[in-house]
């Protein structure tokens, strides 16, 4: 009986997934509130405002599944956002965007070199890289917001396509693309193998260094892509948006069920984790909760969910 329960995929998801029950609780709870939560406008708006964090999470998931993590994405986000605006007068809009993305890929390459090739501790080295890039962003803008002069630039993120916001469509496409990459390609499967057991993966003939390195390069690239989308959404580049973004996104990925131990999780889980954060923000706004209490609740939710995750792992250790 227990076995059949265990093998039931739905029960499996509910025990591994902390974000999904949390989302369901919010969805059911909002049924009883007299707010405009259940309107297409609000639901789309919620997706739209979570989209940047979701895109960041797709890249970070690759590194976490491979047994690393990437805390430099906040820095990459702001610097590439600023570059995509600052380079516009020099070379035009599209080349500037391309340069910003190449910049992100390069930083990812350096992260990969330090973490994978030189085998340094990923979270502290990427934290340092994030700090460095924040300084670069402040230097580039003199710590002032930098507006874009090209009106088309703003329309990339703020435009709509058959009533759907562009950002939501871009996020959806990237979601499908990265989920396919993780699940159906050799690269994705190798990442799970590397995160599960690095040495075993190496001895089974996987080019571990190249594969894990590529995960960091892609994470840098997606962070840069998100950076230019954020600049386009706000029509400004600024150094301040990156401060807590990296921690929030990595946290959201873990909350979704992608474990820091590596080898477990995936893109859909990360999407759920970040959506849970986005929905919490939206619900708290709908219920007119003051901003300080919102910060408090968000912190408490982060602690509670990571606590549950660790506790489950402890139970598993003790069961063995």
């Amino acid at each position, binding site marked *: 009986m227990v076995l059949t329960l265990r093998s039931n995929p739905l029960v499996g998801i509910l025990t591994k997934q902390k974000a999904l029950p949390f989302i369901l609780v919010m969805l059911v709870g909002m049924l009883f509130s007299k707010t405009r939560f259940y309107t297409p406008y609000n639901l789309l708006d919620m997706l739209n405002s979570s989209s940047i964090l979701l895109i960041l999470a797709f890249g970070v998931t690759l590194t976490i599944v491979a047994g690393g*993590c990437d805390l430099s994405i906040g820095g990459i986000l702001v610097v590439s956002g600023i570059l995509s605006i600052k380079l516009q007068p020099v070379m035009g809009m599209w080349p500037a965007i391309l340069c910003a993305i190449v910049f992100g890929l390069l930083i990812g390459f350096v992260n990969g070199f*330090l973490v994978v090739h*030189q*085998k*340094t*501790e990923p*979270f*502290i*080295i990427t*934290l*340092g*890289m*994030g*700090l*460095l*890039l*924040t*300084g*670069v962003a*402040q*230097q580039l803008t*003199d*710590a002032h917001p930098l507006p874009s002069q090209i009106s088309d630039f703003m329309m990339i993120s703020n435009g709509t396509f058959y009533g759907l916001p562009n950002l939501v469509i871009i996020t959806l496409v990237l979601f499908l693309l990265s989920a396919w990459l993780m699940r159906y390609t050799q690269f994705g499967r190798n990442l799970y193998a590397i995160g599960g057991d690095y040495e075993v993966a190496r001895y089974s003939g996987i080019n571990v260094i190249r594969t894990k390195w590529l995960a960091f390069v892609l994470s840098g690239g997606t962070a840069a892509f998100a950076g230019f989308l954020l600049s386009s959404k706000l029509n400004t580049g600024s150094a301040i948006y990156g401060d807590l973004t990296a*921690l929030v996104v*990595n*946290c959201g990925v*873990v909350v979704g069920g992608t474990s*820091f*131990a590596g080898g477990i999780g995936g893109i859909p889980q990360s999407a759920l984790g970040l959506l849970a954060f986005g929905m919490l923000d939206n619900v708290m706004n709908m219920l007119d909760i003051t901003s*300080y*209490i919102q*910060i*408090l609740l*968000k*912190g*408490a*939710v*982060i*602690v509670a969910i*990571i*606590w*549950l*995750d*660790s*506790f489950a*792992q*402890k139970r598993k*250790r003790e069961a063995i």
Partner: protein
Amino acid sequence: MSGIAKEGTLRSVADFMRSYLLVVLIAALVIGTAIFEPRFLSGMNLINLMRQFGPLIMVALGMTFVIMGGFIDLSVAGIINLVAVVTISLIQIVGQVPALILGLAIGAACGALNSAVILSSGALTQAEALFMTFGMSTVYSALALLYSHGSTMHFWDINKSKSLFQAIGAGKVGPVSISFLIFLALLALLWLFQTKTTEGRAIRLTGGNKIAAELVGIRIRRSIVVIYTLCGLMAGVGAIVLFSRITTAAPVIGAGFETNAILAVVVGGTTLKGGNGSVLRTVMGVLLIILMSNCLNLLGVSPYLQVVAKGAILVFAIWLDNRKQ
């Protein structure tokens, strides 16, 4: 023969460079800046340098024990925010000495709460501790915002005696500032705790290998409570020194302290893997950061590029530390 001896000396020079790289770097910085900018060695600047041994070193000393114990604490920023706004308002309500004691107690209590959260979940890895303390930091910062309604509190709003805090902030004994003396006293205490007590050794063994430490009978749960409580307490000391010096307390006063404290500890040579390190190394790490920003200030480098330099040094120090192993 002489070739071997030469190689031997070369190797020992390389070994010396590697183990005392920080000392070499500090010496190079001092000599280099003194040549380019003679004002560097002026009495004014030296007193100024001594004043810099303020809040950051206090927080970094506490963080040293957490990292030595194999964990990490991102909540110090939140603790500083909370302790600063609560303590400054308590001066008005209960007087300065009780306010000081209560402020330190809040810091220690926050640290103890962190350890309770970590212990009850059974988290053993640095990554789990990282995110839990990040969440706790958010909670403490939110409490600080709620308590102060988001406003900044000033010394001049307090009409009770605040001489104690003014002494901590700006007092001097001869040419030596009081905050520097507090730092020396705390450093001596913590150094004795680290080297002469069983608890200090237990912390290092816990950091080295938690499971092995538990098997040989070390109470790792107690070590975890001690390191986080100590870190919270030292963050409280840092908060009090900080707001006494700038005579105001805003609920966002502690932002960035967690990264800078970790930076100082790691640059000083305490490895993140846990198990080794020393408060003295952290002092060297802080000294390097202070000297660097002082030199860059004297040379007229923009503060933004100084952040870049800090990040680069952090990345470089960790990379170097890793190569040593």
